[in-house]
């Protein structure tokens, strides 16, 4: 299968390892990965901040980059960015009165998958250790990000993949379904409420005794990890794609070049 990677802007600029891990997983399964170089961002920051006019430019760019016959399906390692592509792009186009964009956005949206959706529903991965060689001998907890959970209805796809990684010890996160408080520009506009939510999330994570909190959205993980780091916690955050990409021969370091917030030595 020919799979187009939508890296997402935050992963592209801040967490390239997550995209590299995604590529590694798909190539390991024998698929061809392409990277449409015109891609930039899904535009949800603009949409969620009410800047629809600006969002239209960003959405139009995404649709231009992905409205090609050069791939079978598109994938992104992010629940919220995929939710934006699937649910917001048409809305933005409609609000801006751009019917042509609306139609093309719907086509692109329908072909776009979140990584765990693609792995589970399309590629049939039920056991990461057996089918992907995943091995990660660490104690890990997991935060299901809101948009993946509530907009894409990912249910336990990410968690089940993590549970099937060799050597991993998964511990349950209390109140896992509670928002971490990121919310895009919410974390700046209502910084104090956001921080209060993050404090409770951090306390729940630290209470599990896990070394790491995993999840499927780099932005939420940056928020959670940033809070943990500020508190001086040693607990870090790591995208589930990187955990799946880790093998016995090539274990992913809990810290790499991109020092994960909170994992200071």
């Amino acid at each position: 299968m020919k799979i187009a990677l939508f890296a997402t802007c935050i992963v592209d600029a801040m967490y390239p390892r997550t995209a590299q891990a995604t590529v590694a997983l798909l190539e390991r399964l024998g698929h061809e990965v392409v990277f449409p170089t015109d891609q930039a961002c899904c535009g949800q920051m603009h949409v969620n901040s009410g800047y629809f006019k600006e969002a239209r430019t960003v959405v139009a760019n995404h649709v231009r980059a992905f409205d090609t016959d050069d791939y079978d399906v598109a994938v992104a390692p992010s629940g919220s960015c995929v939710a934006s592509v699937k649910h917001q792009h048409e809305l933005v186009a409609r609000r801006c009165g751009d019917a042509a964009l609306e139609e093309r956005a719907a086509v692109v949206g329908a072909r776009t998958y979140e990584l765990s959706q693609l792995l589970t529903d399309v590629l049939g991965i039920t056991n990461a250790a057996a089918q992907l060689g995943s091995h990660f001998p660490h104690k890990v907890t997991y935060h299901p990000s809101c948009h993946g959970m509530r907009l894409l209805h990912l249910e336990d796809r990410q968690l089940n993949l993590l549970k099937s990684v060799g050597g991993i010890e998964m511990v349950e996160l209390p109140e896992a379904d509670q928002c971490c408080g990121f919310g895009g520009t919410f974390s700046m506009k209502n910084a104090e409420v956001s921080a209060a939510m993050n404090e409770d999330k951090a306390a729940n994570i630290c209470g599990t005794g896990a070394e790491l909190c995993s999840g499927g959205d780099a932005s939420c993980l940056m928020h959670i990890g940033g809070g943990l780091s500020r508190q001086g916690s040693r607990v870090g955050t790591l995208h589930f794609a990187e955990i799946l990409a880790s093998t016995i021969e090539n274990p992913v370091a809990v810290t790499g070049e991109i020092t994960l917030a909170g994992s200071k030595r």
Partner: protein
Amino acid sequence: MSNTFLGMPSLPVFGRGNLNATEPFPQAAHRELANTQLRANLGHATHTIRYKRLKVVAELPDWEQMRDAGSAIKDATMANLPAMLEQFEANFTARGGIIHWARDAQEANEIVTALIQETGETEVVKVKSMATQEIGLNEYLEDQGIAAYETDLAELIVQLDHDKPSHILVPAIHKNRSQVREIFLREMPAVDPNLTDEPARLAEAARKHLRKKFLSAKVAISGANFGLADTGTLTVVESEGNGRMCLTLPETLITVMGIEKLLPSWSDLEVFMQLLPRSSTGERMNPYTSLWTGVTEGDGPQNVHLVMLDNGRTAALADEYGRTALNCIRCSACMNVCPVYERTGGHAYGSTYPGPIGAILSPLMTGIKSEENNSLPYASSLCGACFDACPVKINIPEILVHLRGEDVDSQRAKVKVPSQMDFMMKGAEWAFSSGAKLNLLEKGLPLGKLAAGRDKVIKKLPGIAGGWTQSRDIPAPPSQSFRQWWAKEHKPSTAVVPGNAVPGHAGPGNTAGHGTENSEGEQA
């Protein structure tokens, strides 16, 4: 049909009254967050009710089907509102009820006052009602020399404490038992000085305090949960029996109801009386529901009035992206699951309607430019818990985003210096308008890495981004972006592990990222 509209739509007429945030939400939230007692009380209460709701909702095999029906019934009501109102009016009036129409809060207050004055009474008892809270009826009546006694326990607590409700179902959710005891001892005449803080004892004190008022009241004021168009029936849903007292004992009953509270038919109640109790108090059914249709000879008030209130509801209806907010049945499930409400409480929202629904309903009813209501749609992380909990499936996050757009557009229309947020969004629009531009920007990543220094975290950012670094670090950026890596270093893997690989034989495919990075020697 009367709802066939000819000509240009007129400008919406917005509502007034207690519908406004009077200070920006972040500022109000700052104050409320500092109140640790409040946060503890709210955390306890919202967690308790969340658990109860989930439990009773899970009991029903057809909950989602019920939500679908509820949502469609409400949409159908709104689409045919003129016909529904006319039908309701005809049925209610035919059975001896009298209907009054109020364009706004002021007009509703005047109507109610005049009706009370006609009876010659100067005291009235009240059943908890959001509509009368919204129009500020109690304060208005007080100015006219009429004392209005709240009879719901929580409303009584709030009224005795000269406070404001902070939740639409449990108005005193911000008070704990010992605070309630203290209020009763301070404000309740003839209260037992040995009153303990057991909820049962406190409820008993309220019973004693209000009993005489109920038995002698001549006029009662209520809201209504539902009005049924095909029969003209009104409904009040309650728990304590104070509602029954007010609806049954006095000679005159004055009900204030928003025009959006109608349901097309009696049989629609079978949906809503399942959705409402389970969503609001987390009970299979609330203890008491009263239904009345106009006047019944010899049974209950013989003088029955209904004030139909607009006060901005038609303005909300005119907003095609926001009108489903009017489908709200005031169950409060959205606030009970909201992580923002849980931490700030209801007072931070200013308006009678707090929480997620309030953050959309208030600006829809008043217009986005009213006082500080433009700060309300931002009081959400858009986590979507409210949409999941809503029994009539109001897509609150989508309407929040829509109203943020309304705010941004209204700010654009003003001649003003662009805000930092404007600059940030404009900059991001440029950067995200093509892959090439983003690539150009990403070439600056090593600078960020440099700025982060040896700690590899950024601890302070300027301007609005400083909100982030108040409580969070930002990791040092990588030395190159993914797209730069892809262009320069990515080579499609040749060592493919087909389908069912043996663990440990994954091959070098995954060296794509981590081997490279690790080889730079940045180990933990």
